[in-house]
């Protein structure tokens, strides 16, 4: 996509959102910047789950397990060996992706709800194992603390709210670009085909097993990156951040936004992360309202707030000649 006047005019809402995200931290206090940081984390996690759930239609209710692997990889390697956070970002991604490949390979043939419970089980196994402090490296229920800030060497250390805000949103932005490209490729199509009809996809030449695993591996890798940023921002990771409930929240992000829809993921993660803050005055009733809101939402917009539109595919090189449209 070349950035000329035309594309800016046509896609003005996107540029408006980018502009708003860029200036808004300068108009907020640190509390709200942090809220928006977690919005960014949820967005990244939502995008990663969207690959598995939205694009391929696989029920993954243990997605926080992948993030936990990424976060703990960062935490342990950083606190024990002093490896800088920046180098641990790809390491965490690979660790989470490798874990996904390992645990999903034997179970990838399971259908629908059976796969769902296995992912729940996998997420719970990760969490419970972390609580039990295997080999004394995960710190048990207290977790691992004293994790470094993200630094790019020299004086540039990401240690303020506003800096972490930009780090997470830049990564979200880059991920979105990559994911949009994937959506428009033969891989994205293959994923959608599997979601629509597995048998037809297989008969159309798509290696269903491979592409399902690929979705899990990529999704887990992205969640691992989210874990890395999360760990260095909070400086502490503990098992209670990676509960089944959180995995359910991610599930809701994708479905509230609209399956397979990237703007939908952003809206969904905004809803999940900002809603409880906005309703903070209601104190203990806010989650009550939140539950009701989810039900009401699904009654009135079951397809999500911003479902993916499958529009025209551009034929830039060959504009249809007159009359050709009626072939």
């Amino acid at each position, binding site marked *: 996509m070349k950035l000329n006047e035309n594309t800016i005019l046509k896609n003005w809402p996107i540029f408006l959102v980018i502009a708003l995200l860029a200036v808004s931290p300068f108009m907020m206090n640190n509390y709200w910047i942090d809220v928006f940081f977690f919005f960014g984390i949820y967005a990244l996690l939502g995008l990663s789950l969207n690959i598995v759930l939205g694009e391929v239609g696989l029920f993954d209710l243990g997605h926080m397990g992948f993030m936990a692997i990424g976060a703990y990889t960062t935490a342990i390697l950083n606190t024990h060996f002093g490896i800088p956070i920046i180098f641990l970002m790809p390491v965490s991604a690979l660790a989470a992706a490798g874990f996904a490949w390992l645990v999903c390979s034997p179970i990838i043939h399971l*259908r629908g709800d059976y796969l769902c419970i296995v992912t729940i089980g996998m997420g719970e196994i990760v969490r419970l194992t972390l609580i039990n402090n295997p080999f004394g490296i995960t710190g048990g229920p207290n977790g691992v603390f004293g994790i470094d800030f993200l630094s790019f060497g020299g004086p540039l250390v990401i240690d303020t709210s506003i800096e972490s805000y930009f780090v997470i949103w830049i990564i979200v932005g880059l991920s979105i670009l990559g994911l949009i490209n994937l959506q428009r490729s033969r891989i994205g199509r293959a994923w959608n085909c599997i979601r629509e009809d597995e048998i037809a996809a297989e008969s159309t030449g798509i290696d269903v097993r491979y592409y399902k695993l690929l979705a899990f591996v990529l999704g887990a890798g992205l969640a691992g990156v989210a874990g890395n940023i999360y760990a260095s921002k909070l400086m502490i990771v503990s098992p209670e951040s990676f509960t089944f409930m959180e995995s359910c929240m991610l*599930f809701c992000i994708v479905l509230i936004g609209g399956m397979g829809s990237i703007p939908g993921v952003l809206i969904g993660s905004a809803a999940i992360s900002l809603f409880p803050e906005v309703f903070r005055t209601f104190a203990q009733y806010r989650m009550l309202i939140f539950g009701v809101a989810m039900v009401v939402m699904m009654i009135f917009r079951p397809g999500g707030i911003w479902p993916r539109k499958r529009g025209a595919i551009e034929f830039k090189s060959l504009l249809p000649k007159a009359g050709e449209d009626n072939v």
Partner: protein
Amino acid sequence: MRIFLEQMINGLTIGSFYALIALGYSMVYGVMKLINFAHGDLFALGSYLGFTLLVWGNAYVTTNFGLAGGMIAAMLIAAIGIGMAGILVERIAYRPIYPAGRLPAVVSALGVSIFLENMIMVIWGPRYQAYPVNVVPTVRFEIGGIHITLLQIIILILSFILLAFLYYIIQKTTFGAAIRASALDRDTAALMGININTVIFFIFALGPALGGTAGVMVGMYYRQISFTMGWNYGLKAFTATILGGIGNIPGAMVGGLLLGIFEMLGSAYISTAYKDVFVFLILILVLIFRPRGLLGEKIAEKV
């Protein structure tokens, strides 16, 4: 050997809780193809309802009908109350969403679950609540060196009666046949003159009613209840459902009992801390080799 047998009894006790809750998941899933995530919280609500009844209503009932009377009253009222709650949940949160497919209903179920959990917290407070001690006298029997409490005996007998009762309804009566038929193919069942609405009403009343009863039993057995218990037990019971083969009634019972036994044996012989890890590992292993669960039938998709 003695430890093994005692753990088996403990396992069966917990397993019967799981089995009772699992039936709710399984019945709803069988007919509606919906994972009713709110079911665990309905169970927790049952536990709290029983708690209130036993604390506030106990004096009157026990003076007139004795201890057993108090317990049975609490269970009955919890069962009826939670059964009604189940129907209410279905009417409000699920029925309007059925036409939109399965996934929105899952989100709605999660919403109901969050709502119920927080409602319990708002009403009864975020702290643990303790069941009254004297519901069942603490009597301990020793049979051939194996210890078993009166409470365990009562729980085991009661839950086996309930399970047998449900098994009879589902497998032996015409109405049970209607439920099984609806589970196989809802549209065809409707064409055969089965009133699907009655079936839905029944499963959403009976499943939670059994769950509510189990809630009271769990309260009496562990004495301590908290508003998050719905998730913990719900997850285990759902695991049991899948283990046995979802949508399959005997499967849910077998799955629940086996899960309880695995859990207790795991904590006795492997490690208490890792008992849940052990349970989930077994589940995953079973599914790798039997993708439809232990009693689930293999369904070849028609091409």
